[in-house]
């Protein structure tokens, strides 16, 4: 080997502690050649000596003795989560601190050692010899976990307590019996509390449904009354008397048939706060007669309201239809009203109308 050693070869010879290495064995090159060159080249030998000294200096950076915590040190229990890779808003700050603090760096290192993935041969053997590593134990535990919902017993704090003298060593059969009994008790308590909780929820839901049904029924009655009142021919002099009996806030809108293409030409309906109903007068090109079905669709073309309308004589004469819609349905959005008529074959579309309820 004629050439001087390169950086990779020097690093290979210096092989830092704790298994710091890169590349596979085949990448390392023929170390025999390197060693042979080193014996004959004073320059490379000196370089290796100097770098070895530098590496020894770097190894002195590690401080093995215990150090007292400083005022800036976070609580000791944070290091386990950091070592396990659990990120929090403060983990960046903690890591930065640990990299400069001998006390916290040591704690982080200790925590990290517990979580290193590789197992030593001794640990492998210990785990293999545990009862919990047997398929039978694992199946029993899986069965218990799948059956038990809130079973979180506390294990005895220490084996040298009074318990062993009374119950003796825990044989598998005794353990299974104890677990079964405890499981039954816990399941009983859980079922009881769950049943009580569900029945109270069911009662509440029934009451809510009844209240909502009453609201809808009341509203439908009011709309039917108002529709009847408005549809009735009213003499001009009696106009004031035709107002709904209760002081209801009604917003009005008159629409012509046809879809609008631009937002600018779309009719706008303001629904002030406190408005109960919206009265929409639809101009119909064909004289409306018979029963017409009205559907109110929102921008996503979801039907939010529908009803059947029968034009009164006055409406047929004036070529219009009037409909009342609960105001709470008309949240800010674009809407489409579709009128259709039942025919023997299929529903026939009569007209469509669009409007916008601005914010």
């Amino acid at each position, binding site marked *: 080997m004629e050439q001087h050693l390169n950086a990779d070869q020097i690093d290979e010879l210096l092989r830092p502690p704790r298994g710091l290495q890169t590349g596979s064995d085949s990448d390392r090159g023929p170390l025999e050649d390197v060693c042979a060159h080193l014996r004959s080249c004073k320059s490379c030998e000196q370089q290796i000596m100097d770098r070895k000294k530098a590496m020894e200096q*770097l190894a002195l950076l590690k401080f093995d003795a215990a150090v007292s915590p400083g005022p800036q040190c976070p609580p000791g229990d944070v290091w386990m989560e950091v070592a396990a*890779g659990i990120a929090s808003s403060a983990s960046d700050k903690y890591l930065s601190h640990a990299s400069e603090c001998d006390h916290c760096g040591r704690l982080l290192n200790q925590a990290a050692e517990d979580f290193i993935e590789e197992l030593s041969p001794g640990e492998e053997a210990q785990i293999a010899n545990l009862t919990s590593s047997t398929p039978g134990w694992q199946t029993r535990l899986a069965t218990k976990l799948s059956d038990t919902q809130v079973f979180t017993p506390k294990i005895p704090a220490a084996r040298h307590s009074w318990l062993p003298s009374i119950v003796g060593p825990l044989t598998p059969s005794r353990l299974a019996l104890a677990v079964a009994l405890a499981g039954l008790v816990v399941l009983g308590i859980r079922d009881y509390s769950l049943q009580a909780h569900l029945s109270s929820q069911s009662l509440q839901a029934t009451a809510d449904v009844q209240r909502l049904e009453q609201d809808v029924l009341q509203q439908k009655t009011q709309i039917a009354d108002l529709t009847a009142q408005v549809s009735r021919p009213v003499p001009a002099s009696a106009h004031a008397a035709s107002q709904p009996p209760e002081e209801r806030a009604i917003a009005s809108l008159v629409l012509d048939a046809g879809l609008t293409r631009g937002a600018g030409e779309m009719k706008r309906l303001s629904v002030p706060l406190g408005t109960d109903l919206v009265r929409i007068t639809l101009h119909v090109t064909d004289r409306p007669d018979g029963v017409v079905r009205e559907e109110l669709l929102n921008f996503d073309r979801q039907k939010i309201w529908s009803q059947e309308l029968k034009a009164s004589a006055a409406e047929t004469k004036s070529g219009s239809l009037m409909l009342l819609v609960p105001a709470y349905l008309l949240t800010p959005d674009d809407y489409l009203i579709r009128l259709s008529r039942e025919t023997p074959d299929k529903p026939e579309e009569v007209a469509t109308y669009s409007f916008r309820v601005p914010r």
Partner: protein
Amino acid sequence: MAATSSESIEDLLRRCAVSSGDLSAWEEFVRRFHRLIAKVVLRTSAKFGGVSAGVVDDLIQETYLKCCADNFRILIDFEHRHPDAFVGFLQVLAANVARDYFKSAYSQKRGANQVESISEDFTPSAVVDGAGSPGSIERGILINEVRSHLELCIEGRDKDRNRRIFWLYYRAGLSAAAISVLPGIGLTTKGVESLILRMTREVRERMLAPKPVPRRSKRNAGEGILSAHSF
């Protein structure tokens, strides 16, 4: 549904928590995490002096049961921020179960609320490597020297991360594998090893140089390291 080992942890946890009575889900859960839990319980126990295999089994079982506490709240609410998030969480849970056990055992052994008095003629021994000792001062000088060299070697958007990795490796003594799982590192074990090797080479060359090496151009700035002069 039969459990498969290719099933994601997220899906497995959901099945364990939501599908009550899903035995196959829990069998897969135990199969997948048993070694992990056993490893942490064994290591934590070893720090406290070790315990019998029976207690280790109890602590392992206790860890599983903790996962079911409060109607599987832990499994249901767990946020999978990254693929190994639950593994990290389970390790911390197992370590806490073991530590709680030993704390409780020791407090019972010693007796709660008991303190020992120190004799009047007790004289604490001097700390050999305490603050102000010659060793401590020398180490402080060395740290400052290495820091100044390191600052010349690292640059770019990963500068802070690289600095942290260097000190965690050399000062705190963490292995490359341990560093790679820390939050915010975002490198594999090989990646950390490679980065440390490059930084070590740069710092080492600067330590050997007779005078401070002037700051070079921004070559390799994207990787957070500046290359040193070749020797």
